[in-house]
């Protein structure tokens, strides 16, 4: 439900994987097949010579170094910035506001309900349950609209459909309080606390 760019992830991971694959394959072939080694030495030294003559002709006037180095530095910086931007996209989408709209009443103004209202109400409602090892509630922006993400960790043996129905009833009650139906995602998961904690025996 978060804003991780999934298609971009797949594309970039695929490109990165193919690059690693190509380099790895080349190294293995260089180590194992003499013919490939001969071809590589001929091809790469020729390419390197071309780069070197290119850098000779692009010398900075009055200095011994080529400006190709500066272009290279800028390129590397661009790649690093792009990678940091990509990293920043992972798991983004947390939001603070659950509802923000004009209430169209007689009083001019704007109504905003913070995500903390729903988060704390649901967390408090779920806190005392003996069949849960933990519960977290967070507000996320889902396609430009705020939505609630409820993660509950039941103890071992709890029937998930009954738990889902009860949490869903809590959400319906919250809808009535807030006056808006926001998208809600309920994840009934297991973690270390539910796995190693005691089983819920009385229910």
């Amino acid at each position: 439900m978060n804003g991780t760019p999934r298609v971009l992830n797949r594309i970039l991971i695929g490109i990165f994987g193919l690059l690693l694959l190509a380099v790895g394959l080349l190294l293995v072939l260089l180590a194992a097949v003499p013919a490939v080694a001969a071809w590589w030495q001929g091809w790469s030294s020729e390419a390197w010579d071309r780069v070197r003559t290119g850098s000779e002709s692009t010398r900075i006037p009055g200095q011994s170094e080529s400006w190709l180095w500066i272009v290279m530095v800028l390129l590397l910086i661009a790649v690093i910035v792009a990678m940091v931007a990509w990293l920043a996209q992972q798991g983004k989408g947390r939001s603070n506001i659950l509802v923000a709209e004009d209430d169209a009443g007689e009083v001019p103004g704007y109504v905003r309900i913070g995500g903390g209202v729903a988060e704390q109400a649901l967390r408090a409602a779920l806190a005392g349950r003996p069949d849960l090892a933990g519960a977290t509630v967070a507000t996320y922006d889902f396609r430009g609209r705020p939505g609630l993400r409820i993660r509950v960790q039941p103890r071992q043996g709890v029937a998930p459909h009954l738990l889902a129905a009860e949490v869903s009833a809590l959400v319906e009650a919250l809808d009535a309080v807030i006056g808006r139906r926001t998208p809600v995602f309920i994840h009934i998961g297991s973690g270390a606390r539910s796995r190693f904690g005691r089983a819920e025996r009385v229910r």
Partner: protein
Amino acid sequence: MTHAASMNEVPSGPELPGNPGTYADPESSGEPGRQRILARETTSSRAGAAVVAAILVIAVCGYALLETAVRAVGQPPWLIDPQTAADQVTALPAGVPPVLLGTVGAILLAAGVGFVLAAILPGRRARHILADPRAAVVVDDEVIASALARRARLAANVTQEQVMVVVSRREVQVNVRPTSGVPLSTGDLQAAVEAELRDMAPEPMPAVRVNMASSGVIGA
């Protein structure tokens, strides 16, 4: 067309906050949005692989940047001059022991295959969807397994350690070791687990298979 016409007849007067009739919002709680949430939550986002790939690229580029910048301003190199490095790369099989070269290549090859597979495979998570009138509900297979194990344990009247349930996308495997001397019926057990699964109604619906161990447990 009739649907669109009936939509237009709904009066669009001022909405009263808290009135249950007016907060029905077709876009937010309707099917398309929920289907999208469920589709996203039952597949992996590949954030982990993305973070690893980005950090590796940043590390390599950062080092190359350092050496290139040092070279660009005409200072002595830190570890290796880019030009010397390029000369060594062009001469490659020479200068490096072939075993080392092959090992490094094989490691890179394996990592590359891993990343490519992570990008290509559908990346399904071990989760099932539950139907719910209000929310999008997703359950980890582990939770389904422990609920079914509890039901199987009660139906067979055995201890917790004698039942193991494995849930996969299309199959539920119930492994039971009966108590020695107490007969157990596979059919009853299967019916009990199937009834629980029917109540739960996970999607996709897995088929139940009960494996009764041939040897029993003594003194359980």
